[in-house]
């Protein structure tokens, strides 16, 4: 099963943000969404996550139309991480992670918490007050919360993770930890979609690439098919060179 996005269009006010997008999110794969600012990456994630209403097209999750899946069921099947709001009241970091534990059954939570804390290397942050953490630490906590959302007992269907620039505040080593986790999730038969700026990370971690420009899907395929000098230079309006031997992309 998979998530099929067919001819998706989305307007915000009068402006058409997404125009006729079609792609697939398959389990076991990491699909990276690339594109300059304003190309519609966040809007795409918000629409597939159900936050925004589409104007036309279909979103089919595990063979069901998104309109036919109720809110709670959606939360059991997919977890999304995007730009976070400031948290007003005092919560401990582990309490923030617990907000993602949608089944809210106490006995399994501590196991799941331990698992995700070891995975994300955040054991030392758990007891700290969330508001005093740095931007990067807060992002890692939100990441853990997103992961734990699908660590519940629900196994009847394929499940998916969506990430909108999850490592924007992270240093190199934490960023690497995060991407290794993504790879692992793909191996565990989750479907992973991630919007990125970093072309090199996309090249080296993604199984599929989708490039958006001004709301249109301009390139879609494997990294080998899609990532070449011509495509990238056109999209980013910058001279970009792809070195296939070293799997490196240079743009400066």
């Amino acid at each position: 099963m998979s998530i099929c996005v067919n001819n998706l269009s989305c307007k915000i006010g009068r402006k058409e943000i997404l125009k006729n997008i079609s792609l697939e999110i398959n389990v076991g794969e990491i699909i990276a969404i690339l594109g300059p600012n304003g190309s519609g990456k966040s809007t795409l994630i918000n629409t597939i996550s159900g936050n925004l209403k589409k104007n036309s097209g279909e979103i089919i999750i595990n063979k069901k139309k998104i309109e036919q899946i109720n809110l709670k069921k959606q939360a059991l099947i997919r977890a999304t991480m995007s730009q976070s709001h400031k948290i007003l009241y005092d919560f401990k970091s582990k309490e923030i992670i617990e907000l993602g534990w949608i089944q809210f059954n106490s006995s399994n939570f501590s196991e799941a918490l331990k698992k995700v804390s070891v995975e994300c290397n955040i054991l030392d942050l758990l007891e700290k007050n969330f508001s005093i953490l740095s931007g990067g630490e807060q992002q890692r906590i939100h990441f853990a919360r997103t992961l734990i959302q699908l660590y519940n007992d629900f196994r009847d269907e394929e499940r998916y993770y969506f990430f909108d620039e999850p490592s924007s505040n992270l240093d190199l080593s934490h960023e690497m930890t995060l991407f290794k986790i993504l790879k692992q999730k793909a191996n565990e038969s989750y479907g992973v979609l991630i919007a990125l700026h970093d072309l090199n990370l996309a090249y080296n971690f993604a199984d599929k690439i989708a490039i958006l420009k001004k709301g249109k899907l301009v390139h879609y395929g494997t990294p080998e098919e899609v990532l070449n000098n011509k495509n990238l230079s056109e999209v980013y309006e910058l001279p970009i060179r792809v070195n296939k031997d070293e799997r490196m992309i240079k743009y400066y």
Partner: protein
Amino acid sequence: MNKSYFFNLKSKQKIIILVLIFTFLFSLITGFWNGSYDLEIIKFFKNELDNIQQFVLKKIRFPRVILAAFVGSSLALSGACLQGLFRNPLADPGLIGVSSGAALGAAFSIVLGSEIIVGGYLKTFLLPLSAILGSVVVIVLLSIITNGFKNSNITYIILAGIAINSLAGVGIGFLTYISDDAELRGLSFWSMGSFEGISWNLIIPSIIMILITTLWTLTFARKLDIIQLGENDAHRLGVNIRKLKINIIISSSIIVGVSTSLVGMIGFVGLVVPHLVRLLGGSNHNYLLIASILFGSSLMIIADLISRTIIQPAQLPVGLITSAIGAPFFLWLIYNMKRK
């Protein structure tokens, strides 16, 4: 409500709630025991009270103290829900105009209700119902001004509250002006609140409404936690935001509206209590809502006790006492926010 509702409280919070339960019971007994009339409560148990003493205890103190508990819990609970929903520490049914909306609704029915020919039985419910209607109108107005609560900017909401309080003040002032003297008596102590004259038949329907609504409100606890992440994230975690907003609107309108219709406007309880409770034990709502209910009722019982004993045999409006406690705390809160 989940079975695990209570098991999910951290042990520190369980202790605090236990202490608050004892505080509540202690306040209740202190309220029953004390007053301007000299009464030895031990005589109550020995059945040695004379007629007047029994009257004072059973017909004056019991209903008064019990209503104080319900009103205190309602205001505190509403404050906790509004602070959670708006994600705004200054939300309080008084500050944002819900109480004065209820007072305006009640004022309408006091002054103009005699013009409308209503059946006698309906008339007892006319007052609390018009107060609830007043609350609903205010919260709907707030929702429109803040664009469905999406714009939870502090400035917006406080300004909206000031505007609504002013409008309600104009309305109540005008009604006071055109009312004749008997009706004026009913209106004159609204702005400061009072538990004077409360009797059983007056409060039974209201207590039932508050009790049912309070139990229903406790089921919002988890959703109020999740909404702290922001509306997008809460939606993705399965929370129907619109339904939650509407439910909290209805809940606050009922408990604050009913309370205000019986005792007038009492400020600061909804603001102060949730913050104190958060300082003690944390912000997760399955602890916060229950602790606010317990703390709020204890506080109100004690405030009423002070109001009726401090210048006995005369009495002060209870709103004066809650303001005296609440205003300095409010200043401290602003100072604290500035520091952060």
